[in-house]
């Protein structure tokens, strides 16, 4: 029999016992709905975590520091040995030459120095200690500033700042929204390095110290307080709602990277470098952030950097474990969701076996009119498949509705707690198609026994059946 005839006959048969078949189909729909609702929550949670991790630059960033030869190991738990366990270069200074060498590695997009320091942010009458970080121009398009009010820096040398929401709150009058800080000026007070003049000039000169380059710092430097005004151009969402950069680059206030570098703020590594006599010439960085073309390239870059003699650190292993966790989590959700579908499959078997008993004589007539066993089997398969398809489609819609309801409920609860609700629910197209396909597959498998039984009916017995 042709597929169209088969489908028409199957649909007609299903319409005949409409209540029973509708209930069976509803059973499948509920099974699929539970599967879709659970998996959509699993996928939504996974996407939420992925977004946070991506925003933190954990997937595609390698943090590079100078390797320490201390008996206490590497601060921050960085990777001390390459993945292949081969020999390391001796520790090297993290200077311009090293930066160029790292930038030349394959799959590296950019290498930026990490400039982080503590300063006092002041906006009369409030002042607040804040962790300041230099932000590379590429951050504008990396998604780390999602939800920001205002604009990105107008240029790489602009004396502008982007402030984290809760820091903005502390600098403003009580009751004002953090976004009110946009367009206002704040003053940063920080510890600046100033090179010491050579001993001969030191006594003779009364001129004030100037901020100087690192070459001159070979002579040593003094630390003096310094101040600079910045105009706030953007305010990030408050950190309790998950807004703004986190992870490697988390700070309360951001300046353009070039501006932050020029401030010559004392870095943690400066004192250590002064103590060392073997440091190279030129700029020495406390840390470099290396951006990879893709998360897949991170491990290889990390290994190459370790070979160059630096400590490289990424969270790729953590994220890999995270993916494994979510794969197992989704598997369990899928198994629990499928239990309802398994129960529904028993309903299909029951319905079709009942249909065989009721339509025994009809099967005999079909065979007498020329239906082969294959035709009868296919007819019952088609009926099971149609129930699976309809149940699958309704189940996806129902599951979508349940997911929406959970999302709405979560939003209402989070709002009442004064928090912004993250999106914890997602129904990707593969889940929709997969759920419908799975429902049809389960229905067809459930139809195997009834269909075989119907096909095996002896036509003479079936025609005699009253």
């Amino acid at each position: 029999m042709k597929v169209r005839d088969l489908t028409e006959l199957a649909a007609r048969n299903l319409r005949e016992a409409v209540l029973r078949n509708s209930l069976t189909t509803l059973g499948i729909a509920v099974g699929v709905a539970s599967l879709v609702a659970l998996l959509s929550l699993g996928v939504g949670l996974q996407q939420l975590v992925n977004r946070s991790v991506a925003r933190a630059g954990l997937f595609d960033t390698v943090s590079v520091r100078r390797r320490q030869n201390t008996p206490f190991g590497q601060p921050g738990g960085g990777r001390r040995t390459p993945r292949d366990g081969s020999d390391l270069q001796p520790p090297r200074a993290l200077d311009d030459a090293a930066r160029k060498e790292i930038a030349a590695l394959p799959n590296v997009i950019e290498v930026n120095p990490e400039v982080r320091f503590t300063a006092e942010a002041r906006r009369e009458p409030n002042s607040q200690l804040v962790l300041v970080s230099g932000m590379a121009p590429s951050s504008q398009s990396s998604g780390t500033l999602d939800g920001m009010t205002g604009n990105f820096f107008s240029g790489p040398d602009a004396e502008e700042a982007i402030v984290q929401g809760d820091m903005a709150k502390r600098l403003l009058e009580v009751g004002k929204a953090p976004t009110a800080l946009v367009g206002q000026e704040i003053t940063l007070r920080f510890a600046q390095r100033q090179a010491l003049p050579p001993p001969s000039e030191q006594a003779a000169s009364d001129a004030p110290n100037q901020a100087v380059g690192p070459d001159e710092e070979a002579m040593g430097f003094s630390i003096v307080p310094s101040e600079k005004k910045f105009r706030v151009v953007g305010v990030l969402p408050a950190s309790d709602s998950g807004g703004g950069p986190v992870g490697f680059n988390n700070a309360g206030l951001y300046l353009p990277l070039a501006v932050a570098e020029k401030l010559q703020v004392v870095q943690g590594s400066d004192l250590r470098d002064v103590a060392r006599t073997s440091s190279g010439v030129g700029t020495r960085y406390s840390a470099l952030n290396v951006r990879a073309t893709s998360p897949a390239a991170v491990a290889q870059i990390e290994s190459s950097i370790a070979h160059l003699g630096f400590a490289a650190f990424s969270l790729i292993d953590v994220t890999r474990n995270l993916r494994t966790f979510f794969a197992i989590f989704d598997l369990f959700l899928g198994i629990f969701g499928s239990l309802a579908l398994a129960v529904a499959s028993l309903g299909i078997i029951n319905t079709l076996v009942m249909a065989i008993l009721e339509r025994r004589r009809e099967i005999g007539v079909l065979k007498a009119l020329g239906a082969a066993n294959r035709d009868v089997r296919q007819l019952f398969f088609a009926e099971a498949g149609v129930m699976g398809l309809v149940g699958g489609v309704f189940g996806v819609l129902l599951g979508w509705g349940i997911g929406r309801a959970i999302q709405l409920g979560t939003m209402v609860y989070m709002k009442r707690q004064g928090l912004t609700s993250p999106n914890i629910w997602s129904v990707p197209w593969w889940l929709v198609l997969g759920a419908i396909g799975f429902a049809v597959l389960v229905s067809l498998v459930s139809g195997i026994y009834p269909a075989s039984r119907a096909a095996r009916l002896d036509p003479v017995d079936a025609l005699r059946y009253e």
Partner: protein
Amino acid sequence: MKPLRVTLRSMNVSENVASTNGFAVRADRVSRHYKMGEALIRAVDQISLEIRAGEFLALLGASGSGKSTLLNLIAGLDRPSSGAILAQGRDLAAMSSEELASHRGQTIGIVFQSFQLLPRMTLEENVELPLRLAEVPRVERPARVREALDRVGLGARVKHRPTELSGGEQQRAAIARALVNRPMILLADEPTGNLDTKTGEEIMSLIAEIHRPPSGPGRTIIMVTHERGLAERCADRIVTLSDGAISREERLR
């Protein structure tokens, strides 16, 4: 216990026996035995029968004489325990179940005592069913259905369901369904058994007309009945069965 299948080849019947030689059906020492508890029932026992193409054969006999079983064997609804049945030159015992289904759909048409129309389908849909099973193109079907129903005088009732028809009309619809695939052989199992005398005679007239239409080729008809009068009026030959064997054979025309 599975019925013993004996085919022409296993019986060393020569291949040329399988050719039609003007016969629509040939039964060669056909038996159909089955067990009921410990007892072996010989529903059909060593029957040999030749039915010419275009012949109208009536199978007569008391209940349990084996006439319906023989009809089922010729229809390919059942398989013989031994012996061979050739229909249109092909050995049914050697056919696969798929081939038998094709034989039932295309070579023969069957009319039952209890009509066996599907109650939830209209007449049109009932008659279309064999065309669906034979995978006749959809464009051809409406004309074929209309032609078959017109032939039995039900052209105006195509949208009616069987339950809306009288017994005679239902049997006529069943005949239309049996004829729609234009089979060479029409098998009728007590076609008037559920009808009153007058309606039964109308149905017999219709079957006689199908056997020898005013124009065009006729068909081979094998009819099971227990009414000798009907058989004598229409059939070319009457074969009487008793205890699964032929007890009498009369040629009328």
